């Protein structure tokens, strides 16, 4: 079982963020979805709804552009070995490592969610939820360092653009979508305002880390910045003012920053009696906003590029406590890449990670089926992620919709799927995943009590776990989109 835990940890280490929005892109073109207004504030379902308490919507993603096959290798004796196994040639391992490797975990959990129609085609939404994002960007040079280590005397590495960030915040969102058929037939716009309350925002961004190792000395030259906004995590400094650890301080947990964000969206469906009637164009941007943290809740860190050289400890003697020495050695090596604190002179404002969506879809078979193309650009902290998603939706009945998607442009291609049950009245459900890798490796467990004989397919080249799930209660229609079809 211990090995399984280690294996799981390895898999977790290899996860990366693929969609920090933690919303199902596959749902974007689902026309009766109660969730896609999260992606475009103009979107509205056919009827009002209330989210089932505490199950209104769970969007959970862990993922990486690295997969199991990057870390597990078949060995000559038939067993499976880790990438650091001496039998795994460096070239074999490193050939699967990208220049930039992303990892992350995202959670979007809605405690409360509701949408309802008022007046003439006016749709309101209100939700309260919690979001947690952890991102990491690990350059390939870091894995090269892990695998090759000190390959020669001396050995050098130049690690660029390595970062890790984490953010936990809650939001209350009030949205409004309005059909504008009376002015432009098929036009609908929407907006959403979000009040944000953040508990924590931490980030470390190492732009450059030069490592030189020889039997005479080890040296590090680092350029990095970081911040800790909010409570709960306090840096611990050594006598030189370098961060040599962190201390969790639960007493200081709480709301540390407030902010606001806006979603804006528009959709236009051609319905002019032309051959392309039913074609819909949509454009939106989400999470345009910021969170502000007070000075007393902010810690800024920096590694200023000075070179730190470790050439050993002085004063080693027979009475040296080598356990303490080893600990000191570890501290010194950590200090080599550590941060120093910067003065905080003003409140800290952090922009939200905005995402742009631009889509076009075309429905046919009396709106029972549609296909669409979605472009999204997420302006992340470490990079902008572009993605192109092809989607196919089929709604054989009004209450049921199934969607498939295929995403590309990023470092990998994935297939997504979503099933939505949305009755006019009553309980509905949706579940699906945006990322369903094409290539799998079957992990077959043996000698493990509860998993004996079990084979689990895991993504071969990328590892993902992407879940969208929710239960809603439909309140009755306010829109007659499908009236002609059924």
């Amino acid at each position, binding site marked *: 079982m*211990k*090995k*399984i835990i*280690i*294996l799981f940890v390895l898999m977790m280490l290899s996860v990366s963020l693929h969609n920090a929005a933690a919303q199902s892109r596959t749902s974007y073109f689902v026309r009766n979805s109660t969730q896609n207004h999260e992606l475009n504030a103009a979107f509205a379902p056919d009827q009002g709804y209330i989210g089932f308490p505490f199950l209104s919507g769970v969007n959970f993603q862990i993922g990486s552009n690295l997969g199991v*096959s990057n870390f*597990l290798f078949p060995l000559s*004796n*038939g*067993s*499976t*070995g*880790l990438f*650091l*196994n*001496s039998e795994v040639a460096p070239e074999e391992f490193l050939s699967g490592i990208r220049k930039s490797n992303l990892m992350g975990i995202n959670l979007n959990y809605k405690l409360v969610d509701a949408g309802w129609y008022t007046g003439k085609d006016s749709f309101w939404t209100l939700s309260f939820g919690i979001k947690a994002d952890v991102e990491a960007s690990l350059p390939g040079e870091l894995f090269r360092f*892990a695998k090759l*280590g*000190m*390959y*020669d*005397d001396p*050995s050098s590495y130049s690690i660029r653009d390595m970062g890790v960030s984490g953010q936990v915040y809650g939001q209350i969102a009030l949205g409004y979508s309005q059909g504008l058929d009376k002015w432009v037939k098929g036009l609908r716009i929407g907006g959403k305002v979000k009040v944000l309350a953040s508990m924590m925002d931490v980030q470390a961004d190492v732009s450059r880390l030069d490592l030189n*190792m*020889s*039997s*005479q*000395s*080890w040296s590090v030259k680092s350029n990095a910045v970081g911040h800790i906004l909010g409570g709960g995590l306090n840096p611990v400094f050594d006598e030189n003012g370098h961060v040599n650890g962190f201390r969790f301080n639960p007493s200081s947990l709480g709301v540390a920053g407030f902010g606001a964000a806006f979603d804006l969206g528009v959709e236009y469906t051609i319905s002019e009696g032309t051959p392309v009637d039913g074609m819909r164009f949509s454009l939106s941007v989400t999470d345009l906003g910021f969170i502000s943290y007070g000075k007393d809740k902010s810690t800024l860190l920096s590694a200023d590029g000075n070179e730190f050289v*470790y050439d*050993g400890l*002085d004063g*080693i*003697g*027979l009475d*040296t*406590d*080598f*356990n303490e020495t*080893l600990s000191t050695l570890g501290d010194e090596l950590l200090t080599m890449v550590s941060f120093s604190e910067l003065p905080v002179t003003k409140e800290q404002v952090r922009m939200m990670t905005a995402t742009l969506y631009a889509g076009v879809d075309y429905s046919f078979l009396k709106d029972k089926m549609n296909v669409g193309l979605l472009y999204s650009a997420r302006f992340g902290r470490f990079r902008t992620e572009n993605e192109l998603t092809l989607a196919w939706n089929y709604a*054989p*009945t009004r209450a*049921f919709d*199934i969607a498939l998607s295929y995403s590309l442009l990023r470092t990998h291609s994935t*297939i997504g*799927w979503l*099933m939505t049950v949305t009755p006019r009245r009553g309980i509905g459900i949706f579940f699906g995943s945006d990322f*369903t890798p094409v*290539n*799998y*490796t*079957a*992990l*077959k*467990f*043996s*000698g493990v009590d509860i*998993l*004996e004989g079990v084979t689990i397919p895991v993504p*071969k080249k990328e590892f993902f776990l992407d879940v969208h799930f929710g239960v809603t209660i439909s309140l009755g229609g306010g829109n007659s989109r499908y009236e002609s079809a059924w």
Partner: protein
Amino acid sequence: MKHYSNILSALVCVFAVLFAGCTSELTVGEGELDMTVTVGGDSLSLPLGSTDSITIGNFLNIDSVEFVYVDKDGNIFINMSESFEEDVSVADYVDKLTVDGFVKQFEEQTFTVPAGTVVPDLGIVNVDFLEFEEEFTYNFMFEEARESGLLSITKLDFEDTWIVPEIKLSSAMPLPSDLKMLLEVVLPDSFIMGQSPYVNGSTILFEGNVTSSGDVDFQPVSIDGLVLNIAENEPFEIEYTFILKGLSMVVDMEDIADLEGSEINVAVGLSVGAEDRKLHPASFYGKVDLALDEIVQQIDLDAIPDYFKSEDVYLDFAYPYATVKLTSNSGVPFVVDASIEPYLSSGEAVQPIDVRLESPVSMDADISKTVSYWLSSEMPSDVADYEWIYADIRNLLLRIPDRLDVGIRPYSNLDTENDHYIDCNATYKVSGEMSVVLPFAFGEDLYIPVRDTINNIPAEVGTAMSSANVSITGDIFSTFPVAMNISGYFLDSNNRRLDIEVQTQKIQAGTEDSPVSSPLNIVVYKSEQAVDIASMVVQFELLAGTPGVPISENAWVKADISVGIPGGLTLDLGTNNK
């Protein structure tokens, strides 16, 4: 129904896509997932750092052990010292040599005052009683002094000892008021008299005024001593004869007419001694047989580290020596027989060293004198103020014993040409200090393994050594005048030695002014036992050096160390000890 068929078709499509892409299989689980990892790289090497400048004192733990010292020049030596002090009691001689004096009263005689001899210039008449002459024999003995060790005595000095005659006159005629009496006392030649105008050689002419009661007031004369010249084995018995004669009277010329022809009674006596009528000895010359208590001291050398005493240690000190200082305020010369015998718990016998030393002589008890001896196998070139005596110290201390048994037996030297001088009132002390000194100047056969234990070896070290050969590389700089070997071995938590091979590294000898660099390259070979490592015994073996070159505290050795694990460190993440 059509709708359900459509739904089913859609689901089949979805799951078919999901699992159509399984392209390989990896087996994980017990025995199938190899959790070993190798990290660090082919040339993994970590600069561990620099050691302190380790001096010989650090090696030998000088600060914490007894017997090892550093002199003002920084030179190190072992010093095992013992001292003694004994009182020499001569109080017995005061009693044994104090003899009775005497008061001899002769029979009263009646004389008819004859006509005297007129001395016109002085206006006096000297009247001699020619018929007066008395002889007296006086004897005494002090044989008991032999029991106190007195063998012979040449001269005995007295204190508070006097001789004085006594005369009482009586007559029917009134005696003149200014009458004087004179009396000659002839002493034996052995008597040494004090300074007095009455003394003339061995004769004392006493003169005194006659008081109204008829007593003559004589001034006593001190007796300073006696020349005895009693050789060994002769009896301490003395007999002397005193002669009293020359009794005469001095009378004014105007008074002689009344006295002449009258009868006068004269009672004469002689007194010798102090007020208690005893002759009090102050000092004497002769030979005394004094044997002081034998001193047996054991210098326990438990505090000397074991690495100096192990059976595999072979010390070859170039210039070991011992010093003895004897101090005395006594006029008796003492012989001090000293023995030094190492005791080895192994039972190995070592020939002891016996030396015969002589104490200094002081004729004044208030002044102590010291004589210093230098004991060594070879005569030193420059040891001013010391008297050199041959003693094979070098072979005595090839190993540091568990104990040094030191015997000191002081006794008076009877072989001297001169007499002993004993001040009966003095407090004599004879003291000594013996030091066995082993300067750290090693000879060519030196071999000292010094072992020290490094406790609490981090578990990571054992882990590393269980997975790979570990090399300790770097440079060692030494100013030690002797070469050294560095090696060691490992112990588990129960202090059992582990079978892990550690190569031995030799460090070249240097000189004080120019350290010599030796490359360090110790390889500890991979061993499965390494995971049990709890401590390490580091062994420094001091090897033979240039004989006579001292090892001082100023000599040091220093190392710049890197730890290398060529090929990297292999760990099994699946085992419990990781």
